């Protein structure tokens, strides 16, 4: 049996699915061989981006670059290979009183992916993107040479790679800072908002909170448009915790984590079931305001508790549509977007609203700019492209852009914002799609 590295590959949205070469190596010498022997190479971490960003003709999987290199426990600086997952970082760091400065809504992304996407979290307005805390990384370029990139060394490559979607080379290792925590718990407040005006007001009022995010029921129309629940949180200090958590504040008990056993049939998710889900979710919280302490897993990664939840969308898969609209016109734009979705009847199971703070102009390839961002899931079906077109039109009208990490079908004028990445060696299917549509 001769090995055959051509295989079916797809990312978290299960759309699109391609048959391409995918290989993984753990020695830099062999990775260099792979880079030199192929044209159109793209690195792929844990495949947790949604669309076609990490798919390409020759995929280099960083799964085997999964080792830690060093951990300075005094200063909270960790160095690891790029295929290490954020979950693995947390496993070591939390018991020792350190947390990620910035984390996306899943802990199952690789460190390399977090840099290439320059991920953001619920604290963007307060603490920026992942890149703010990256000290340096090693990048393999098109000639197979390994460059150390930091703010001082090869800084042009450093900034181009941040948010650069893997188009500048293969990230091999990274060193980044962690933040001190006293407990593995979050002091949380959840507040119900009747409509869009109220939720926007709540965001403004919550500016001093480190973490804010809102779940939004995107099927509501008329005066109820924007019905939502705002969640804001802070890392809890040990002394604040209730007595039963005080004893072992940095350790969480193991929890039951179910797995979705198969792809759900197509009829399971439809506008009615989404409506019922949204209603139950909104009504679950009886009071207007709830204050409590919850563990960091539940606060940051509620969906990670259900493994392979992407299967509920069935075999045809789903897309995540995340856009940002600049602050000045953000409210108006959001309203238009929500109205369009409600009228399309194409419900989103999970709609998340967030206010981005100022962006770092040096990280010019990063997605976030100051304004409102909304992330929505849509099941792939025959009507979806039309809806995406309509939404794209609104985003365009209000001067917004689309998050490349989640994109798989948006128009190129909203997705071609990357600069200084032209490199014939490193090419993704997404990049080709965007360029060809220009």
């Amino acid at each position: 049996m001769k090995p055959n590295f051509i295989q079916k590959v797809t990312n978290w949205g299960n759309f699109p699915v391609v048959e391409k070469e995918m290989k993984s190596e753990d020695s830099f010498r062999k990775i260099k061989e792979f880079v030199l022997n192929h044209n159109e190479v793209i690195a792929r971490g844990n495949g947790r981006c949604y669309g076609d960003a990490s798919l390409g003709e020759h995929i280099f999987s960083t799964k085997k670059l999964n080792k830690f290199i060093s951990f300075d426990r005094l200063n909270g600086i960790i160095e690891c290979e790029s295929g290490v997952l954020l979950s693995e970082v947390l496993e070591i760091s939390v018991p020792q009183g350190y947390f990620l400065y910035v984390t996306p809504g899943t802990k199952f992304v690789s460190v390399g992916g977090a840099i290439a996407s320059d991920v953001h979290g619920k604290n963007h307005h307060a603490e920026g993107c992942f890149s703010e805390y990256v000290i340096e990384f090693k990048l393999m370029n098109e000639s197979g040479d390994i460059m150390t990139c930091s703010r001082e060394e090869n800084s042009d490559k450093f900034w181009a790679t941040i948010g650069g979607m893997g188009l500048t080379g293969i990230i091999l290792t990274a060193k980044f800072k962690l933040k001190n925590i006293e407990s593995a718990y979050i002091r949380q407040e959840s507040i119900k908002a009747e409509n869009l005006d109220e939720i926007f007001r709540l965001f403004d009022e919550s500016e001093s909170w480190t973490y804010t995010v809102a779940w939004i029921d995107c099927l509501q129309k008329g005066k109820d448009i924007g019905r939502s629940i705002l969640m804001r949180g802070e890392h809890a200090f040990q002394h604040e915790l209730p007595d039963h958590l005080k004893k072992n504040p940095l350790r969480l008990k193991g929890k039951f984590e179910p797995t979705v056993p198969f792809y759900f049939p197509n009829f399971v998710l439809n506008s009615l079931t989404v409506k019922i889900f949204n209603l139950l979710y909104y009504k679950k919280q009886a009071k207007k305001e709830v204050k409590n302490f919850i563990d960091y897993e539940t606060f940051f990664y509620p969906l990670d508790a259900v493994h392979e939840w992407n299967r509920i969308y069935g075999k045809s898969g789903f897309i995540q549509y995340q856009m940002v609209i600049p602050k000045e016109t953000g409210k108006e734009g959001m309203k238009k977007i929500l109205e369009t979705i409600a009228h399309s009847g194409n419900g989103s199971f999970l709609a998340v609203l967030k206010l981005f703070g100022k962006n770092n102009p040096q990280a010019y390839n990063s997605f976030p700019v100051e304004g409102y961002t909304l992330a929505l899931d849509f099941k792939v079906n025959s009507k979806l492209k039309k809806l995406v077109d309509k939404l794209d039109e609104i985003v365009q009208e209000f001067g917004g852009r689309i998050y490349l990490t989640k994109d798989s079908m948006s128009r190129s004028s909203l997705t071609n914002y990357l600069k200084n990445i032209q490199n014939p060696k490193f090419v993704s299917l997404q990049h080709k799609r965007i360029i060809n549509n220009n």
Partner: protein
Amino acid sequence: MIVLGSTSEVAQAFVEKALQEGEKFEKIYLFTSNKETAERFARHIDVKFVQQSEIIELDLTREIDYTTFDNINSNVLFCATGYLGEGTEEGLYDNKNTEKIIHINYSKLVPVMNYFAQKFESRRSGTIIGLSSVAGDRGRQSNFIYGSAKAAFTAYLSGLRNYLFDKKVHVLTIKPGFMATKMTEGLPLNPKLTATPKQAATCIYKAYKKQKNVAYVLPIWAVIMMIIRNIPEFIFKKLKL
């Protein structure tokens, strides 16, 4: 812990599993012919578990200087050394390939195992875990050089278990079946029959704790191999397995 073949993904997953379960080792001795990969792992377990380790170069295709192992002592030996070599069609009549398969899987490996077995015997405690293969259960046309070496290794472990029984040393034989590792990367393996290194490590750790004698990594393989072993030879020889 002494680890032979320490760059094997299963060996590394087993070391991590044991450390996660709270096992303590004064030192982990990482034997390998690939220093670079072993060094990565040594740093990794130091960061993750604050576990000290030492790398010892061991190339089973060369002359071995046993005196360099004099000071190495432990209560657990994990042997994941293995070499699949080229499959039958490409490599059957290639002498170098045949020799290498037999050396790494059996002939050069057994003296090393014996060297440490003797230390275990004199201390009258410990566990020796050997990764053999389902390929050793019956010779099949697709990889019988490898299979025959693994069959010999299985027999060696079985005899060693018998010999060390009243010396209070336990020997565990693992037969992994398909595993998603470097050895099999790119081969079209049925996912239902294939274990990840992590799954394998969990199984092996359980078998180690329960002091099992022989364990298949996925239980299905015990059934498959029972069937394969019991097919009458006059039929078996005609099959394309």
